[in-house]
């Protein structure tokens, strides 16, 4: 539908963006807008000021370092799919990004936006959780890093506080033993349950999506029985909706966890 009145600013530096976010109560960063715009159309949310991040070239970089892969928050999902650095360092990110929504959405949608909106049906929150990413957040007082385990606070809520901005996501270099599995409605519809897994040192780090307000992290031996046991042991209390009862979601969570770990192991 149509947006409520809103103010708009298009800073050209991260510092200016942070200043704007801090200066206006009710300011929200506008990344790709593929979630926020729709929420605003429904007027379910009405930020007072949109701080458009699309001119912040410094947030669009993809680089490899000794720490692994550093992804600017404004890297689009399409760029993630195409990036040779991503393909070499952590191809799972590209493979999952390619499954998100559709071409047009991937052309605008960003990794930072997907992660920060933390809609339970999003794919990337469980992926960066499983990969043990670190988030770099900038605010008026400077930069801080947040381990992914502390990053997701709730639906649409992250450790990025008002006045702050997620600037980059650092994904550690991995062995390549990563996997992802999801059950969407149809071939490519809204996600019902998803899971990402990463195996290192004989342990699988699994993040389950769509079963709680934030990705549910589990660490277990990668054998199927152990994975199943771990998911059951997590005593998930997933939401029910038209697509899945809590019971069905709980059941699917176990299966996608197993499949994600199997893919990681293969």
């Amino acid at each position, binding site marked *: *539908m*149509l*947006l*409520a*009145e809103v103010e708009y600013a298009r800073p050209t530096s991260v510092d200016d963006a942070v200043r704007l976010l801090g200066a206006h109560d009710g300011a929200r960063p506008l990344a790709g807008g593929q979630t926020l715009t729709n929420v605003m159309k*429904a*007027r379910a949310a009405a930020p007072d000021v949109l701080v458009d991040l699309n001119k912040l070239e410094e947030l669009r970089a993809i680089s490899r370092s000794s720490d692994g892969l550093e992804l600017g928050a404004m890297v689009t999902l399409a760029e993630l799919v195409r990036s040779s650095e991503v393909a070499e360092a952590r191809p799972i990110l590209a493979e999952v990004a390619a499954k998100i929504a559709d071409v047009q959405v991937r052309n605008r949608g960003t990794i930072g936006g997907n992660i920060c909106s933390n809609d339970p049906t999003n794919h990337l929150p469980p992926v960066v959780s499983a990969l043990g990413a670190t988030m770099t957040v900038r605010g008026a007082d400077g930069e801080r890093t947040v381990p992914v385990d502390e990053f997701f606070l709730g639906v649409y809520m992250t450790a990025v506080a008002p006045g702050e901005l997620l600037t980059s996501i650092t994904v550690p270099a991995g062995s390549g033993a990563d996997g992802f599995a999801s*059950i969407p*409605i*149809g*071939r*490519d*519809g*809204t996600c*019902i349950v998803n899971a990402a897994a990463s195996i290192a040192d004989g342990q699988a780090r699994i993040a389950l999506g769509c079963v709680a307000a934030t990705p549910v992290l589990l660490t277990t031996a990668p054998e199927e029985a152990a994975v199943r046991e771990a998911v059951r042991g997590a005593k998930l209390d997933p939401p029910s*909706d*038209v*697509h*899945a*009862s809590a019971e*069905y979601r709980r*059941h*699917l969570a176990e*299966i996608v966890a197993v499949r994600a770990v199997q893919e990681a192991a293969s």
Partner: protein
Amino acid sequence: MSETTVTPDRPITVEETETAPGFIGVNVPRKEDRRLVQGEGVFVDDVKRHGMAYVHFVRSPYAHAAITRIDVSKAVALEGVYGTLLGEEVAAETDPFFQIAPPPAGELKDYALAVGKVRHVGEPVVAVAAATRELARDAADLVEVDYEPLEAVVDTEHAADPGVAQLHDEAPSNTIWQGNFDYGDYDAALAEADKVVRIKRLHFHRFSSTPLETSGAVVEYNRGTGQWTIHSNNQFPGFAIIMMGPALKVGMDKLRFVSQDIGGGFGNKICTHVQLVALCLLARKLKRAVNWTEWRTDQHTANSHGNERVFLDVEVPVRSDGTMLGFKARMIDDCGAFTRYEPLGCIIWAQVTPGVYRWRNVRVDFSQVCTNKSPCGPNRGYSRMQHLWFTERVIDIVAEQLGLDPVEIRKRNYIRADEMPYETPNGCVYDSGDYARCLDDALKLIDYGSIETRRRDAESRGKLLGVGIGSTLDSGTNNFGQSTIVNPELQFSGNNEVATVKLDIFGEIVVTLGTTPQGQSHETTAAQVVADLLQVEPDDVTVRAGHDSYWNSHAGFSGTYASQFAVTGLGAVKGATEMLREEILKIGAAVLGAESTEEVELGGGFVKRKDNPEAALPFMACGAIVNANNAVLPLELRDITLNCRYVYVPPHQLPDTERKYGNLTLTYANQIHACVVEVDPETGVYDIVDYGAVDDCGIRINPQIVEGQVQGATAQSIGAATHETFVYDEDGNLLTPNFYDYHVPHALDMPPMKTSSVESASPFTPLGAKGMGEGGGAGLSAVAAALQNALQGAGRPIVTSSSNPYHRVWELLQNPDESRSLVSVDER
């Protein structure tokens, strides 16, 4: 005539021939496309007027509530807001809409806006008009409405139970209509049966075709003449005018309906008369044109849904050889909060009472209830689709229970080609068709012979493979006389459609239709018929785009709905063109000095003497003479106008309202589809891995267009069978109000689709063609059957719902006995 054609390598190009081209049956490229592929179509929201206001409806958040206060003062105070319209104004200025239902349910009051009470989530309560779309929305947010919530009625089966809240105070209960249908001798059939299969409950769910263009209108009011011009995408202006004239207390000519391009309709755009009346009042009140474009969420929440139906206490008497003698059932149809086009659905299903089967003894207790859900209306396959799904479920459940082969039991019970035309137990006449042959063709398309091998292959991959058949009908060219079966006081019967074909002053052949196409390619197929009759090329024929009631080329039932254009529309085109041809021949004969029209013929845009082709009069000369130089004509030819209006009227008769008996439609296209699914037993997730569709709609005017309709109808029924469902919670909130949660098929979702056709000409229609646009929803039946077949190795659950998203398949896998407990067999 009967001929099988296999899907050709597309595209078929028209072969250039020196002689008469013959365009009927040829894949002529569409005339509509040139503008549409360039974005130059004119859809309703493309229409703009100076100073036009944009309208936003304030809608009810409650399913059932009394309105206790409305305050629009803050909205009106907003700069740029032109005004509002409230239910109380509507009640003062209009009469409630005419009701098809007989009293007492017919006493219910339905207005353009809620008056005193809301009855479904999304019901329009206040209309706000402003200078921009955004401002109208802003102002709508400032309208204050207080509600006193009432108990919401959402359960179809129990909507009419004692003690349940009542939707309409003027009606005595939530039952809108009830009737008993009793054909053949059901008791005798039961006595004769060797076995009786019983099914406690089957459920056909709510969904809609959700045309990609939502409803909308631009309405202008001419204060000098008191006439409204309604640019809209309403697909059945004839019906809208019948509803709106009395409500607005004006004559029909005051309501000018105009449309050009319509972005899909599928029946969902028939009942927009409600909003159109609100817009008419606003345009008059505000003295400016008003635009209303429905939002998608509103389209899902408050536009017409397809009817939901439950089938209870089903009883099927069967002989031991698998011959089914008929059925008995109690059916409850749910029309939602208002009746609008209903309760016509209570009789429409009877067009296909026995489905494609030789079932002679039928006893149905049919009722319709209202509930606090979106109003229902015609939706592709209207009311027959529900019933045909029921007949297909019955046959597959009987086969499963008695251990019979689904193919064999169908062939044993199908009406046979040599029985055509076939009169059903309730007096309908199936015009032609060869269902068994179509079934064979469909099975060939999916390589039925290899199914067991593929089943084993699937098993080796941990999957369950299943195959299912859907055999359905698309009955077309309604006899509106069937409305008298639901209400004998009604004065409707027959059907009609109009075409006007003229030869103009510069030799231009212009066709004006009465229809309102929404993608059905009327411009193209009409041109094909005209070209053949006048011996010209389709490119020589101009078919006006869209509809305008001021073209005077429409009649009471004009519109595009209910699978009939190939019969009524093209019948009218044929009639008008034949009139025009006669006139052209007369002019030609006179000018060329022939004794009679027998001595002249048409060819290449000329009238020619048969004995001397050199003596030829171009059409342009004919047009010029009659239109601008008519003193040269002999007096006896002065009544020739070269402007021929023809009304096609099908040969319908009044039905017997007492016995609920008679021929309710003219043609019966059939669809025999076969589908193969693979189910992941761990999750209930499944894929359609193969799909074959064989359709027979008689003579195909343009095979490529027919095939396109088949593919589209199939996609819709696959969508409905899998993920498309309107789900309400116990409070009447719609939980699938947008394309996130109402998942329609995307390009990736569609299975490989193979199509072929059989052409069994209709003996009853002008061109041997049958209407076929609705399809019969064969995919719904085929998917349900394939799932049941796939799960036979997993506890043999019975599929009892038309909606089978993954979670339902998983539930069937978890608890097969629950569904099995709904069916039983009595041995005699």
